[in-house]
């Protein structure tokens, strides 16, 4: 109503808001924790990345502030290869997990038989296996002259014909897939559960085949939720250490491994921090995307 009565003419005073105060109070402990154990170390890492250490001929060090670490990151072929390799591994494993998890999630959402039930029981298992064990199991399983190789050779595969999986990008990808499968499946299942039957039935009603329903209805509808899972897993893979360390090739290295080498083997904490910041920046692209998706959902 456009009428402004005299009572309304008094400017509305916002009374003290208890809900706001309580909200701040309840969030505070976690904020304090995060500040101490995450934000401060992160800021420190940023600071370290701007510390440059020079060494003279006799091996004595001098320190200054500068951008040299970043320059080195940008110009070093090895480091650049590492960045590319890291992104490659992350993208590949996420893509593969996505496909497999999607199939499982579809089976869980639309399947009824015993197979669907079985899938529902087994996909979750890797969630309960520490990544060190998983990596180790994969080594014994997939190595040349390992378990799979042995079985295949028993069936007539010539010695040496088994592809190099361990100490190769394939090893990292397979193990990442193994480890991330539960997470992605769980996420996709819940996303698919949110798609109501009537949306699918109405598509059938206008004549869409199963594939067309998947392609035009299920996939696009699950995309926002699925992309959140993808982003999340991408972040996890990009910063990971255990799997690429135990199963990866000598070079190029994933950034997580490279960082540890710089830190502990080459005694170059400054470069290591710079790498950490670089990964962070890389992740930030994904993170910002994630957050934007979240807010879009919230608005809806």
């Amino acid at each position, binding site marked *: 109503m456009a009428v402004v009565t005299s009572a309304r003419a008094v400017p509305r005073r916002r009374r003290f808001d208890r809900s706001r105060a309580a909200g701040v109070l309840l969030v505070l402990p976690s904020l304090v924790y995060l500040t101490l154990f995450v934000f401060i170390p992160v800021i420190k890492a940023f600071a370290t990345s701007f510390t440059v250490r020079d060494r003279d001929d006799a091996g004595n060090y001098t320190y200054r502030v500068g951008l040299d670490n970043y320059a080195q990151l940008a110009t070093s072929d090895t480091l650049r290869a590492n960045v590319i390799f890291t992104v490659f591994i992350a993208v590949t494993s996420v893509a593969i997990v996505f496909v497999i998890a999607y199939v499982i999630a579809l089976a869980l959402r639309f399947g009824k038989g015993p197979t669907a039930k079985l899938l529902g029981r087994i996909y979750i298992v890797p969630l309960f296996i520490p990544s060190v*064990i*998983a990596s180790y199991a994969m080594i014994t399983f997939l190595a040349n002259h390992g378990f799979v190789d042995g079985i295949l050779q028993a069936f007539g595969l010539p010695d040496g014909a088994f592809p190099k999986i361990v100490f190769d990008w394939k090893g990292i990808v397979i193990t990442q897939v193994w480890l991330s499968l539960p997470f992605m499946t769980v*996420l996709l299942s819940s996303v698919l559960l949110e798609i109501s039957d009537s949306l699918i039935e109405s598509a059938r009603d206008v004549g869409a085949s199963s594939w067309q329903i998947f392609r035009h209805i299920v996939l696009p509808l699950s995309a926002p939720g699925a992309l959140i899972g993808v982003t999340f897993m991408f972040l996890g893979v990009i910063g990971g250490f255990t799997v690429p360390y135990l199963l990866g090739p000598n070079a190029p290295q994933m950034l997580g491994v490279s960082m540890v080498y710089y830190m502990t083997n080459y005694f170059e904490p400054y470069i290591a921090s710079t790498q950490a910041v670089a990964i962070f920046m890389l992740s930030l692209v994904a993170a910002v995307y994630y957050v934007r998706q979240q807010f879009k959902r919230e608005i809806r």
Partner: protein
Amino acid sequence: MAAQAPAMPAIRLSWWIDDPRMRRMLLRLFGGALAVFIGIPLLTLVLWSFAGEWFWPNLIPTQWSLRWWQEVLENPRVIDAMVLSFTIAPVVTFLTAVVAIPAGYAFARLDVPYRRTLLLLFLIPNAFPRIGLYVSLAVLYYQIGLIDTYWGVVFLHMIGTLVYMTWITTATFRSIDPHLEEAARDAGASPLRAFFSVVLPLALPGIIVASLFSFLASVDEAQGTLIVGTPHYITMPVLLYTLISSFQRPVAAVFSVLLALPSLLLLVVAQRYLHSEYVAAGLGRV
């Protein structure tokens, strides 16, 4: 209707998806492959743990033996590590819950200022590479005397669990009809009483799942523990790292089985809570 009814859709390339028998068969194949992919690597570990002698190219161990089991179980370091792992994990989970549940509740129900910014900040632990964070944190730990302490390890583990727990509980609280809580207030319950009598019991499944995740994450954490926990706080996965790098494959295998067993037990216990609605809720619906 003025227009002629259009023809039925054209013949499709993907006929096999529409054929239920074919679809069922493909699904079975897929299920079998998945079972092999997930199960067999773990099974080889079990084989290794009982291998007295197993050299290439034998498909199974040529000698079976329990001596690795004996060796591992007699090793006090293993027992210590095991005890440590399974005492730290509940502590981490509990502390995480204590910090994360209020925050989750606030994000779900209350008018938290700068909510978006805060949620963005809550992402940083996941976006900043863990190793970098741990190393940076270690330096801080030296300064505040948390290095190589029990609480140092606990707080480090919480980095991974806190965010997760906050998200899942936020989503769980969101899914509870706020009227239920209001009805309790209306019946005379204080805000706290309403929370404990009504909201918390209803949120329990979600909280259990979040706790399970925290527990597993804590048991899984090796890299950070290695940096801030040595030498006194060696957890199971840290010890496993060591064993893998000192060429004791059967020992490592025994150890893996030992470490995986409690988790798998947990899996059985937790099965009924592992509805994907709860599990993924945290990520999908914050």
